[in-house]
């Protein structure tokens, strides 16, 4: 019984402290609160640097975009969040659609972020660009045979293709922009062709797709470039894999963004705007690239060495919010053709 009593007392003490702490932290002028679907190890160094330079503290909580969005909606006008940060234009578009983000005008942001990588109404801004491209085995694939995403539906790739699950928003956005380009009917044919060509069940992440290609289970796949970079760093540059930039004669490589917006009911909107602008400037943009081998959204910022090594490419300049607008259609389409 004494054990239970002690545990109870400890619990009560911790509870009291946490209440006290939650009271302390409310509504301080120089603190910015961020809900982030970008993981801690990718954002903390940025926020630390920002705090060093400005003295403003940034606090954050990480989760998937869906729950964070739901939390913002539920908290409504009483939310403590000043900024929502998430990956994928689909999620950003949805946040804007659900009216949790404020429209902002900022010359800095409009100068640093190209128009197709931000919301036309200024509710969110892309902060880094991620290219979703084709990866192939240098041992078994002649890059001459590769051309477009669409061509991966051809018979020559039968039993040679590996894909990540359709539940990942990256694939939903890819298919959504294909719908925007080709219409539903043609896209359904293409995605159905992918499914027929699969060497094995879809994987739960991009890294597993590349490992399967290295192991010889399949020959080509579709991945985000920074996963390829991580694999190179982990396994060495001699890994028999290479990136291929598809659709160069047409619209270009599918690109997506990670980005952020200021919440409609932010209690500290000026500071949040300052952070958002800072994130779009040279120093932070370099860090984005260095931290996760993504492409800076700011055209003037140089790519890191490893990223430069993958070569230049023409990216799709379609308005990335198309990905959000057609996401539901894309998910339904992938369900119909049995792409799990």
């Amino acid at each position, binding site marked *: *019984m004494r*054990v*239970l009593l002690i*545990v109870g007392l*400890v*619990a009560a003490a*911790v*509870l009291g402290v*946490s*209440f006290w702490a*939650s009271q302390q*932290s*409310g*509504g301080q002028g120089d603190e910015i609160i961020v809900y982030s679907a970008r*993981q801690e*190890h990718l954002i903390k160094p940025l926020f630390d640097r920002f705090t060093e330079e400005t003295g403003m503290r940034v*606090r*954050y*909580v*990480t*989760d*998937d*975009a*869906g*729950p964070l*969005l*739901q*939390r913002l909606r*539920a*908290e*409504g006008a*009483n*939310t*403590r969040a000043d900024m929502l940060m998430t990956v994928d234009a689909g999620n950003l578009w*949805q946040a804007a659609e659900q009216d949790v983000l404020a429209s902002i005008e900022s010359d800095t942001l409009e100068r640093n972020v190209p128009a197709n990588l931000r919301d036309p109404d200024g509710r969110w801004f892309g902060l880094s660009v991620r290219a979703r491209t084709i990866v192939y085995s240098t041992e078994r694939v002649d890059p001459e045979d590769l051309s477009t995403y669409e061509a991966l539906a051809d018979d020559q790739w039968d039993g040679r293709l590996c894909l990540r*699950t359709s*539940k990942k*928003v990256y694939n*939903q956005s890819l298919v959504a922009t294909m719908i925007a380009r080709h219409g539903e009917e043609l896209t359904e044919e293409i995605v159905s062709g992918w499914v027929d060509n699969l060497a*094995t*069940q*879809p*994987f*739960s*992440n*991009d*890294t*597993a797709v590349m490992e*399967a290609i*290295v*192991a010889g*289970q399949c020959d080509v796949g579709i991945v985000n470039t920074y*996963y390829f970079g991580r694999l190179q760093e*982990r396994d060495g540059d001699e890994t028999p894999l290479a990136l291929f930039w598809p659709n160069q004669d047409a619209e270009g490589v599918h690109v997506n963004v990670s980005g952020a917006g200021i919440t409609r009911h932010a209690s500290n909107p000026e500071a949040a705007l300052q952070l958002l602008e800072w994130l779009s400037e040279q120093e932070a943009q370099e860090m984005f690239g260095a931290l996760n081998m993504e492409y800076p959204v700011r055209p003037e910022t140089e790519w890191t060495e490893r990223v430069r090594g993958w070569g230049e490419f023409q990216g799709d300049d379609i308005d990335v919010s198309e990905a959000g607008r057609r*996401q*539901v259609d894309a*998910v*339904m389409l992938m*369900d*119909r053709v049995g792409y799990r």
Partner: protein
Amino acid sequence: MATPEADIRWMSPTAGSTRGGGTGGWRWLAVAIAAIILAPILITLLSWLQPDQAIWEHLSQTVLTRLIGNTVFLIVGVAALVLLLGVSLAWLTAVCEFPGRRVFDWALMLPLAVPAYVLAFTFIGILDYSGPVQGSLRDWFGSSDWFPPIRSPGGVVLVMGLVLYPYVYMLARTAFMAQGPTLMEAARIAGMGPWRAFFRVALPMARPAIAAGTALALMEALADFGAVAVFNYDTFTTAIYKAWYGFFSIEVAAQLASLLLLFVAVALFTERYTRGRARFFQVAGSGHRIVLRGTRAWLATGFAGGVLAVAFLIPLFQLVWWVIWHSIGDLDARYLNLLLRTVGLGLMAAFITVSVALVLAYAKRIQPDWLTRRAVAASTLGYALPGSVLAVAVMLVFTWLDNAMVSLFGLGGGGWLAGSLVALLLAYSIRFMAVAFSSVDAAVEQIRPSIPEAARCLGAGQGRLLREVYLPMLRPGLFAGALLVCVDVMKEMPATLLMRPFGWDTLAVRIFELTSEGEWERAALPAVTLVLVGLLPVIFLVRRSAQQPRRSSRGTVQATAGRDLRLGGA
């Protein structure tokens, strides 16, 4: 060993209850608890006010049939596997003697410390086409195509079965130990062979415990999202997330979740109904273990050792391997913080949940009327809700309260309750009430009604009865429940993610952040830490339950019973 009472007594549930004045309060307390727990669950039901026909049509035309088929396969498979492993291992360690039995006794509980999502990515890491096993096979034989694919329905069932069998093992083992070999001896004297005695006597008598363990395992399997996501195996839970993340319809997600709940409620009711009104009250017997010899002994050792290796040792080895080669560099001072937060949340949630479970079990015991029993049953439903759905529901309740507080009293800066520890702890309690309750209730049920009756005859009031008669006898059960909840809370992911206060990151949160990016090797570090921390309560648990028959059933219970009987007779 036989006491004046028979070793087994059959009682109707009402016969043993103490009716009379002063017990009404417990009923209403139970109803109040049920109301708090049901509030978020009811919120999921409210979603039916906003039906979304287009999404429903789409789901039913495309994926729903397969999802239900997959879910049924998962449930049946996991049930079969946990029963097979749990019951057979429990029987071996509780009743038989074979080489290594003393170690397996507690070691077979260790997989409980491994979260399903961790075992899932470890198994895929080892056994998938690009993993070391198939790689070596290809080096030796040129092909590994004949190797059964791990990312398959069978693989999911295997992983879930291996992490969930300890629930059955633990409860069945306690039941078998409580029976003691005397019962088997009696059956054997009555002319039954060993197998027949097992199936006709030991197994039916342990059925409530086995059923409770299986129910826990299946509810966890139904609500799981982490492991099935790693396998990309589509279940009903997947549909819930698809509706939410893919179609951004929290309403359809909640509707699907409420269907899942309905299914669980029906299943639990059926089990209770078929179990009927039989109640067993047991007094532990002492006697000799069945000593296995020769081949049989080594088969037993091999079986127990095999399960332990596959479910625990090999995955742990793989995780440690990953840590050493890939993620040891991530280890810094912040890990201490993560660790303290994880343990702190586990302990606090365990204390609260078990306290509430005790109130429920006690109310059900002393006042088993229709209302109380329904209230108690409803209080345990949260375990079957996928963590994320439950978390959102609890969050909605709290943000509603927050907003009401702001608008009514001008209090708080918003998010004061919803982002607080209280909300998180409540979410844990709702989610894991079933875990705590099954332990506590089993302990309460094992107390023969004659004991409290005797105390009451002697004039003990309700409070004194609980304090001086029930609590001392229940201590092992309460402790076991608390440890189970503690382990579960430490492994819990979705509710922690959504509701944790700022800065309250736990090991599970870190695992999520890394696995969601496919960085399994780096996730190995928090995963290993979580498994090792989880081992502490598990080891406590097994040490306790190993002592239980001697200390509580035979020692405390017998002594108490003896005293009560003597006093009652005087």
